[in-house]
C-alpha cells in the first residue's frame, strides 16, 4: 500500500512538473484543445484493478478487495457535473492467520472474503490539457461474503454476523482520463470508507476503458 501511495504521489508530482515547465503558449493551446472537447454526454466505463484493505477487523486481517472488476454508466452535463451509477466485484483472497486462545491449542485458519459494491456517484469533470480530471464521491452498498473454513470456530467479530455482511460506503475517488473521439481510457482510484465495522475500508486502483456514444 505504501508503495502504491508513493507511486501515486510521484506520478502526480511529475505530472505537475511536466505541465508547469511547459511554455505558456503551449499551455494555452493545450487548454484550448481541452476546452473544445465537449464534456456533455453519456459515457460507459469498464474498470479492472487491484484493491487492498487499509484496516483490520479487530485482530482479524481480511482481504475482501484484491483483483476488482466493474462498470460505470454516467451522464455529464455541460458544466462538468456528472451523475452516475456503478457496480464492482472484488474477488478478494484468503489470508492465513493464527488464533491463540486462552483455552486450547493454537491453530491456523484461512480467512477468505470477496465483495460486491454498487451505488450512485456524483462527480465533476475538469479538463486538464488533453486529459480529463474526474472527481467523484460514491455512495453505495457493499456486500462482503466471508469464509473461515468448515472446521474452524468463527472469529469473535463474526460470531453474530450473517453471511454476506452488508454495509454502506462513502468512496471519494479520482480518475485521469484521456478522451479521444468516442473512446476514453485512463487510471483512477476509489477509497471505500466502510460504515460497517466488519467490512474493512479499502483502496482500489483501476485501469479504465470506456466509450462515449
Amino acid at each position, binding site marked *: *500500500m505504501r508503495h502504491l*501511495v508513493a507511486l501515486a504521489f510521484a506520478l502526480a508530482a511529475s505530472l505537475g512538473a511536466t505541465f508547469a515547465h511547459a511554455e505558456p503558449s503551449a499551455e494555452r493551446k493545450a*487548454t484550448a484543445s481541452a476546452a473544445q472537447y465537449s464534456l456533455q454526454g453519456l459515457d460507459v466505463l469498464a474498470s479492472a484493478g487491484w484493491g487492498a484493505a487499509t484496516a483490520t477487523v479487530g485482530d482479524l486481517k481480511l482481504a475482501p478487495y484484491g483483483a476488482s472488476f466493474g462498470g460505470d454508466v454516467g451522464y455529464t452535463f455541460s458544466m462538468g457535473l456528472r451523475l452516475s451509477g456503478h457496480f464492482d466485484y472484488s474477488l478478494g483472497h484468503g489470508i492465513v492467520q493464527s488464533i491463540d486462545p486462552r483455552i486450547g491449542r493454537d491453530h491456523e485458519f484461512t480467512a477468505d472474503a470477496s465483495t460486491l459494491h454498487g451505488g450512485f456517484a456524483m462527480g*465533476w469533470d475538469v479538463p486538464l490539457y488533453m486529459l480529463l*480530471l474526474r472527481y467523484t464521491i460514491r455512495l453505495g452498498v457493499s456486500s462482503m461474503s466471508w469464509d473461515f473454513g468448515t472446521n474452524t470456530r468463527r472469529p469473535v467479530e463474526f460470531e453474530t454476523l450473517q453471511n454476506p455482511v452488508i454495509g454502506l460506503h462513502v468512496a*471519494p475517488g479520482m480518475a485521469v482520463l484521456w478522451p479521444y473521439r468516442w473512446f476514453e481510457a485512463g487510471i483512477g482510484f476509489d*477509497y471505500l*470508507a466502510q460504515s460497517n465495522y466488519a467490512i474493512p*475500508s479499502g483502496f482500489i486502483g483501476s485501469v479504465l476503458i470506456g466509450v462515449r456514444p
Partner: protein
Amino acid sequence: MTGIAFAVTALGARDVSAQTAATSAPGTPAPATPTAAAPAPEKAPSDLQSPEQASTRNSAYTLPAHMVSFESGALGIGGGDVVALMGISYGLGAGFQINANLAHFAVGMFNLGAGWHFIDTRYFDLGVKLGAWYGHGKWYWIATPAAEKLISKIDVIALPIELTASSTPTRWLELDLSTAYAWASFFGSAPSERSPFADNEIGLRQFFLRPGARFFLADHTAFEISTKLPLYSGIPLEDRTLSVPFKRAWAIEGGFRSRFARGLFGSIRLHYGSISNVLYGARIYPSFEIELRR
C-alpha cells in the same frame, strides 16, 4: 506597523489584474473599454493563485473583503475539519476573516476562528490564524457507547494559534510553512487521555511545523501536499502532561484542488498518519471538500 507597511510597499503589492489577464481562459473575449452605454463585461476567471480563489487552508491567505465561503466535506482529520466539515468563512477586509465549522456545533464542539493576512506582497505573504474551541463532552453524541460514557464527564477548551508564510516563487509553485501552537485544557472528573477529544487532537497541547507545497498544474487545478511535524505533543492531565511520541502525532496529506465553476471549488485528499488510524481505523484515509465562494 509603519515599518511593515513600508516593507510591503517596497516589495510591491500582489498584481492581481496582471495575473488575471495572463491566465484568462482561452476564447474569453478581451475586456473592452467600458463606456457609458455598454454594460461592464463579465470578469474572466483568474487562477488559483488569485486572492479570490487562493486556498485559505494551511496558507497565509484569507478571503478578500465581503467574500463569503461555504465549505462542506467529510472524513477530514485534525482540528477544524475533523470528521465533518460544514464551514462558513467571511472576509472582513484589510486581510481579516472569521470562520466557524457549524458541523462541530452539532456535536457540542463550539468553535470560532479568525485570520489576518498581514503581509501581502508579490512573492511573500504572512498570515496568522487564531481559534477558540469549547467541547462539551455530554453533547458529543457521535462517540461509541464506551467512549460516550467517558467523555460525558469532561469538557475541553482549546486555543490554537498558527503563523503561516506563503511564497509563490513561480507561476506554478507555492510554498507554505506554518508554525503552530495549540493550547488545550480538560475540565471534569473522567481521565482525559483516552477521550475522543484527545483522539481528534482538539484536546492536545502541541507545537508543530507544517511545510507544504502546491503545484499549479493549470489555472484551475493544483496538486497540494503538506506534512505536519510535531516538535512537542502532550495530553494535559490533572497533575501532569502526558507526552505523545512523534510517530503517533505526525501526518502527511496530499491531494488535488480544482475550480469546478466560477466560485465553486472541490478537493480530494489522502491522509496518512496515526490520527487517521485512531479516528477511522486505517492509517491512510481520504477526505473531500466542496467550497462555494460568493
